[in-house]
């Protein structure tokens, strides 16, 4: 207990005043405790940061090894992709299933909720514009194709340049989501968007696991590469890494679009249209 706190309790008059004094003292006590915590945390943080190596001076052996091994051993120029999809591929497989499981869980919860309210996630008519401003609709529509191309580019070049299935998958999701924001829901006519997106998520998640299984059967270990590596810096190189990137891209795109569609169900959009 602080000196302030003790004095406050001693000086307080009996009754309601004493109660008030106790509250003030406990508030002061908390501030002192908080102050001590902040100072201690700041001291340890500064001490820790002071011991870090300088920028660009990293001496860890694992990083040096990977930086020198990826191109000769896997013929792929993006060290990060080679590490995530090859050297620690099983880790990435599990990470992919984290997103898959999370998406399935949220969708299951939302669908149970909606079952009692009878509101479809999928639009029945596909011609209702979501955005009301014409200029906004034109701008959004103009952005769809470039975003789609960028997403495909990031996925397909994952083993050559920064990026990959995960980042590209989110960009692909944004492109299709723009259709929904600016045009006519996610209405792609006979394609049945929700069905297609569920299929994309499933195919992507299963694809990763099956490519790993193919490695087990053909090359003798799970996720072991079983394809020719190709020439470094060519589009077709790095063995199975581009295939894994495509699988992750499909999975991420499908999972996020399903989540978006489930959250923004029909009724929310109808409500917004009437405003």
């Amino acid at each position, binding site marked *: 207990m602080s000196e302030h706190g003790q004095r406050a309790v001693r000086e307080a008059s009996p009754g309601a005043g004493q109660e008030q004094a106790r509250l003030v003292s406990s508030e002061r006590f908390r501030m002192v405790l908080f102050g001590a915590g902040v100072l201690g945390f700041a001291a340890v943080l500064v001490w820790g940061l002071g011991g870090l190596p300088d920028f660009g001076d990293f001496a860890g052996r694992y990083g040096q090894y990977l930086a020198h091994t990826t191109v000769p051993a896997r013929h792929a120029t993006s060290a990060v992709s080679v590490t995530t999809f090859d050297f620690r591929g099983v880790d990435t497989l599990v990470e992919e299933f984290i997103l898959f499981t999370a998406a399935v869980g949220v969708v299951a919860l939302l669908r149970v909720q909606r079952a009692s309210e009878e509101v479809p996630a999928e639009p029945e008519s596909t011609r209702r514009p979501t955005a009301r401003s014409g200029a906004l609709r034109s701008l959004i529509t103009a952005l769809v194709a470039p975003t789609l191309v960028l997403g495909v580019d990031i996925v397909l070049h994952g083993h050559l340049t920064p*990026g990959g299935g995960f980042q590209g998958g989110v*960009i692909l999701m944004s492109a299709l989501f723009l259709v929904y924001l600016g045009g006519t829901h996610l209405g792609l006519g006979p394609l049945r968007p929700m069905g297609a997106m569920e299929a994309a998520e499933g195919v992507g998640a299963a694809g990763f696991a099956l490519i790993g299984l193919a490695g087990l059967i053909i090359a003798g270990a799970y996720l072991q590469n079983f394809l020719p590596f190709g020439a470094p810096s060519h589009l077709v190189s790095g063995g199975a890494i581009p295939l894994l990137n495509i699988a992750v891209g499909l999975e991420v795109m499908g999972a996020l679009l399903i989540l978006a569609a489930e*959250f923004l169900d029909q009724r929310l959009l109808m409500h917004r249209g009437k405003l």
Partner: protein
Amino acid sequence: MTAVQITALVAVALGGTAVVLAREPPKQALVASVYGFALAVLFLAFQAPDVALSQIVVGAVALPAMIIYALRKIIRRGEVNRGER
């Protein structure tokens, strides 16, 4: 340390503070999106383009979007429940 790196560090410090100071959840989600983008610039300035891309898609797009969806859902459910009473 280059000027770009220092600018990015300052932007991240200001952005993080702004996220804490924004009190309304919908506004906070948008401020968090801008903050996420500042972090991405920081990662790029420190030569980590892969991390920067992931940061853009998660911190600047996916996370704020999920927060906005969830808020919208909660607000809408509240309106429906009030309407039924």
